[in-house]
């Protein structure tokens, strides 16, 4: 490769003529991608950044002379304003945080579980099971949401099945009550301590932050797990097939049972895949938009409002373009920050000194870092 790179400099070499014009071709080949990404990604982000600092109301061009620079006003309105904008943003963050907290672990665990089940060498109908688990992933979020609205309607299939079990199903998509509050309610706790109800964060009291996802949001949680587990199952299957048989065999020779082999041998080797699945899950679950747009538009009681939908509705429906853009940028920062945090938590740690010493042959000075 390096020989080829330096080739054009040597005028006499035969490859010089062949490689001439390669720079032009390179730029020409990448030009469509660069132009389209530039126009529809880079420029828009810069424009939106300006809008988030302006008082543009959606009429005319955001660059016309009657649009003013308002500094951080829009960001302040959604984070410290004390008004409806702040409360809505706080509520949206609360809803989405619970969603992420439930969906990411559930989808990761379920997809790993399915992958382990389906990856067995001797399994009849392996293709059938894989297809069944993967199919929900190819359908559109709109179609699945419509289906979910039906399944979880008051007289829907889910409540029907629950009634066979003697359970009186909730009014799913019309029930704004928080799941954690409901659980506390069953043991008689209906109002929180004053310390929690009296103090607020982003316009939402601490007691309401701890309400848990509403029953309506829980239905969306189940939907997310249902639709994404298949995709992640495929990733885990690929990872499982990469694990060498020799390590597993060695573990078996050492007398490890199936449970131990999974936790001590399989799982550590799946770490790269686990990392990918968690990253994709974390990024995806903070972008809940389609389901809310199609299904509930934020209701009931704003308990399915998400930052992504709030950003859209403030701009396109309430004409608060500056606030909508500000919410989008805050959401972007949240996603980037959480991804970095997750990478840091799951980083490859150097082996601890104590551990390393056990394996050392000579001296203790040369330990890991």
């Amino acid at each position, binding site marked *: 490769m390096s020989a080829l790179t330096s080739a054009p400099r040597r005028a006499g070499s035969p490859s010089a003529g062949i490689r001439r*014009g390669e720079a032009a071709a*390179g730029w020409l080949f990448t030009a469509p991608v660069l132009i389209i990404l530039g126009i529809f990604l880079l420029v828009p982000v810069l424009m939106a950044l300006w809008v988030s600092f302006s008082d543009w109301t959606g009429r005319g061009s955001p660059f016309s002379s009657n649009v003013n620079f308002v500094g951080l006003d829009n960001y302040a309105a959604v984070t410290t304003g004390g008004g409806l904008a702040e409360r809505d943003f706080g509520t949206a963050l609360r809803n989405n945080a619970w969603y992420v907290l439930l969906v990411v672990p559930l989808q990761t665990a379920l997809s790993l579980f*399915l992958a382990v089940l389906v990856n067995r060498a001797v399994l009849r109908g392996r293709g059938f099971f894989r297809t069944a688990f993967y199919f929900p992933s190819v359908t559109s979020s709109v179609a699945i949401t419509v289906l979910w609205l039906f399944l979880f*309607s008051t007289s829907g299939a889910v409540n029907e099945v629950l009634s066979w079990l003697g359970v009186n199903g909730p009014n799913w998509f019309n029930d704004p009550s928080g799941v954690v509050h409901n659980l506390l309610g069953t043991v008689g706790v209906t109002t929180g301590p004053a310390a929690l109800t009296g103090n607020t964060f982003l316009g939402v009291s601490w007691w309401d932050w701890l309400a848990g996802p509403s029953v309506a949001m829980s239905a969306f949680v189940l939907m997310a797990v249902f639709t994404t587990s298949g995709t992640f199952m495929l990733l885990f299957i690929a990872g499982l097939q990469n694990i060498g048989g020799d390590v597993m065999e060695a573990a078996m020779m050492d007398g490890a049972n199936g449970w131990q082999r999974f936790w001590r041998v399989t799982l550590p080797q799946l770490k790269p895949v686990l990392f990918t699945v968690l990253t994709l899950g974390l990024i995806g679950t903070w972008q809940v938009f389609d389901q809310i747009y*199609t299904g509930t538009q934020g209701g009931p009681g704003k308990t399915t409002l998400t930052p992504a939908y709030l950003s859209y509705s403030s701009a396109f429906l309430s004409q608060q373009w500056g606030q909508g853009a500000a919410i989008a940028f805050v959401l972007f920062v949240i996603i980037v920050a959480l991804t970095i945090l997750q990478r840091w938590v799951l980083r490859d740690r150097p082996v601890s000194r104590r551990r390393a010493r056990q394996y050392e042959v000579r001296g203790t000075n040369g330990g890991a870092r």
Partner: protein
Amino acid sequence: MTATASPQTTVLAEQVVDGPRRAPRKHRMPAKTLRWQIALYALLCVLALIYIYPFLVQVATSFKTDASAAADPVSLVPQPFSVAAYERLFLNSDFPVWFANSAIVTVFVTIGRVFFASLAGYALARLRFRGRSVIFAALVAVMAVPAVVLLIPKFLVINQLGIYDSYAGMILPLLVDAAGVFIMKNFFESVPPSVEEQARVDGAGTFRVFWSVVLPMARPALITIVILSFQGSWNELSHFVIASQSPELTTLTKGVASLASGQLSQGSQFPIKLAAAAIMTIPVAVMFFIFQRRIMNASEGAVKE
């Protein structure tokens, strides 16, 4: 990117794993093994039922009447059998227009993505030019930007360019997908360059080499891009929400979403909504079953970055 583990290696590995474990048990404790096997299959069947049943209910309910859909939401046999939902959808609604719009957008976006992604992927993998690594770094950065964050920004530019509420505004921004470029680049890097080198020595120009030598070899990767683009643009909602507003430009996703929120029907007319959702699923389902093997393999390769 390393190539996907070959089937032989996989099978061999599995034999190594399973050989010593299964062989002795067969003789020692067949009853226990059998019980485990039955439990495993029972579990898998219950899970598969949970995953498939919603779709069966969807299709069944679309043939029910409104009353029977509400009265008996679980059964798979429509009683009475009714095609009223489909009649209404095709004869008395904009549904055919939505379908046509989705088809138009999907075809253009897929063709554009395949062509542009392979061009750029080839350049980034094979051609040596100043600025290549910068372009690549920019692409990786672009992939990290969450799509939902771009809704307002994209609208601003589309509006400014005067292509709001037109096919151009719906198609152009979707034509390029950084992930597709990434996949093509990885693929071209895994192919030995000797064939192209030969064609170059024979005097073919860069585009000629790309078009008649490289692209035909890239069929597996191209199919992957086709699948991803088809699925992506057919299922896209948020971009169309912000790029158009007139009824003639409504796509399936947007139309069905408006159906769901009750803009066409009063009350909970589930049969018609579910019929619309079912028809909308057919093209991606067909695509999925045609390329099933490829899809499973594609994601196997994708994870090994």
